[in-house]
């Protein structure tokens, strides 16, 4: 007794299904990036692409490699925890090519008040000044920014 008459029909349907599956796999293989799904539902290579972006702030350790004299002065004063690029700005270009990229001269009239301008929201004990404090005299005529304690000459 023959169970399946005309079994060829089934094989033809199976062949069409298989062809569709193969086509799906080929298209998927072409469209989905290979690193997709390595760690999760995303392209793993995006992590390394983001990690490869250029650095603009060199970090204070890079500064201290050459400017150890400034570091010595700074480490004795209250500005010890302030990183170089906090005032001097991003200088990785200078760190990688010190000869051709030189940092701009800074203006203490702008820089000092950024942190030390009086504001009620600042924490208690943080040194703050208002406009009357200096009477128009530049900050660095009394305070040296790398070690801002009053110098002997300035108090005379």
């Amino acid at each position, binding site marked *: 007794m023959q169970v399946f008459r005309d079994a060829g029909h089934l094989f033809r349907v199976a062949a069409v299904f*298989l062809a569709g599956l*193969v086509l799906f*796999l*080929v298209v998927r*293989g072409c469209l989905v*990036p*290979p*690193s*997709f799904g390595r*760690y*999760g*539902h*995303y*392209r*793993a*290579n*995006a*992590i*390394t*692409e*983001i*990690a*490869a*972006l*250029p*650095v*603009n*702030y060199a*970090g*204070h350790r890079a500064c201290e490699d050459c400017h150890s004299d400034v570091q010595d002065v700074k480490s004795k004063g209250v*500005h010890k*925890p*302030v*990183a170089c*690029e*906090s005032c001097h*700005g*991003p200088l990785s270009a200078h760190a990688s090519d010190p000869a051709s990229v030189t940092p701009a001269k800074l203006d203490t009239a702008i820089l000092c*008040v*950024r*942190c030390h*301008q*009086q*504001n*009620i*929201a*600042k*924490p208690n004990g*943080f040194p703050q000044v208002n406009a009357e404090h200096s009477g128009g005299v530049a900050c660095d005529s009394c305070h040296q920014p790398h070690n801002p304690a009053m110098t002997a000459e300035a108090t005379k």
Partner: protein
Amino acid sequence: MSMTRRQLLLLLPAAAVAWDYLLAGTPEAAPNYNLAGHWWAMLIDINKCIGCGSCVRACQLENKVPDGYYRTWVERYHIADWEMQYPKVDSPNGGKDGFPAGKETVGKNFFVPKLCNHCAESPCTQVCPVGATFISPDGVVLVDQEYCLGCRYCVQACPYGCRFINPQTNTANKCTLCYHRITKGLTTACCEVCPTGARQLANLKDPNDPIHAFLHTHSVQVLKPQMATGSKCFYNGLDGAVR
């Protein structure tokens, strides 16, 4: 070995997929960086923040953030007395140029630096329809700029308002925790320039990281704990009025 036409047709695409996978290596940006050895977090000490805006400026310069958009910003809170649910909050230009002196002479006043909280259960990564934003294996929420469609689902999903659409690329943009720096042994740009140490980058997987001692001995809070986002920005001295 003989092969029918059907076998060959089946084998070819499989071989193509396998070959493609073999060819695509991982570009090595930071060869000495151990992805599995890090779980990044940030510690923010409200009591130390002076509202100078150095972090905001540094972030914009380091990451080329367009003007008027912020990956990190500083808010100033003023709470008159007991009405904690109605704090006065301002953040002129994201705090980038510091804060004007202000008229308030009484009440409670303080600064709150904000940035992406790099949530362990982040709502923003869950809504992305194309897998363009994700939590990296070392705990940083990142955006794949090539995959992002700019559909803004994630911008709406973030309960902290930390995402925006970059008008230059029309893709979602946010704090990467300076991923290009921390994978090279540097700290983030905002932590680097913070003059008072109000921001500290921390690796929770490092048992010698000072954050563990700090978390054990301080009353630390995260923003919107009721959202259960698993935020990894830990605030010390956070007032209950902060949203």
